[in-house]
């Protein structure tokens, strides 16, 4: 049997990789890719706790489904913003989008 710690460490590693991508990439689409990795790490944790805890209560899987919905909402709005910004400013590099800075 696989101990719970293996899943939690896999999830922590995936979260850290996604965090690095979200913090270090210049392209706004690539930043969203990093956020997707972090959301997937959260889902691994939720499903692992469902399986290793009380598996008759479906809380872990229900939360995983809700995270799916939130991820879909986040990515659709995020990519729509990226496309809209690209149309107006002709760039998707996060460093160059400094209209709110003074």
């Amino acid at each position, binding site marked *: 049997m696989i101990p719970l710690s293996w899943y939690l460490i896999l999830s922590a590693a995936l979260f*850290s990789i996604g*965090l690095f991508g979200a913090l270090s*990439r210049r392209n706004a689409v*690539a930043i969203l890719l990093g956020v997707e990795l972090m959301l997937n790490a959260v*889902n691994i944790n939720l*499903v692992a706790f469902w399986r290793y805890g009380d598996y008759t209560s479906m809380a872990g899987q229900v939360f995983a489904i809700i995270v799916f*919905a939130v991820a879909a909402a986040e990515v659709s709005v995020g990519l729509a913003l*990226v496309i809209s910004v*690209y149309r107006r400013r002709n760039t998707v590099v996060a460093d160059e989008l400094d209209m709110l800075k003074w």
Partner: protein
Amino acid sequence: MYFMTAEQIIFLIVSGATLASALMVVTVRNLVHAALWLVATLFGVAVIFAILNAGFIAVVQVVVYIGAIAILFIFAVMLTRKDLRDNVPQLNKNWWAGALVAAATFAGLVFLLQSWSAISKTAEVLPDKFDAVGLLGEALISPDAYVLPFEVASVLLLAAMVGAVYVAFSRK
């Protein structure tokens, strides 16, 4: 002598492949390739869900994440194609600070986990004829369980869809 079971070997192979393709997602230069590596990562996570006996979640992962979200990423990358020039750096100039924060997060999480007593717990065997999908469906629509969060999530999706159409619509 400690022998690994087949399940553990499969888990190690799959999680190694998942983490390797996740690293490719955040480091590779060409963004179309990054999106394709994301598909590989998401598939690896789906296999992890299958190992955890969450078959329905694994299928939803493949259909929603790979079938919709990853394809949406590939479309967005292609619509903003100009910034895929290969001669510009893909990481910002503070990338080392990001790497430091990520490494510190990982070290902190592992430190917290190894001080937790239930960490090496193993899963109980699921009973025969355990109907996880049926229980999940009842939990999602039962007023005693999660019908309210479920409905809020669907309103959120609708609002996100309307918002995405409004933001990305080009007025001629």
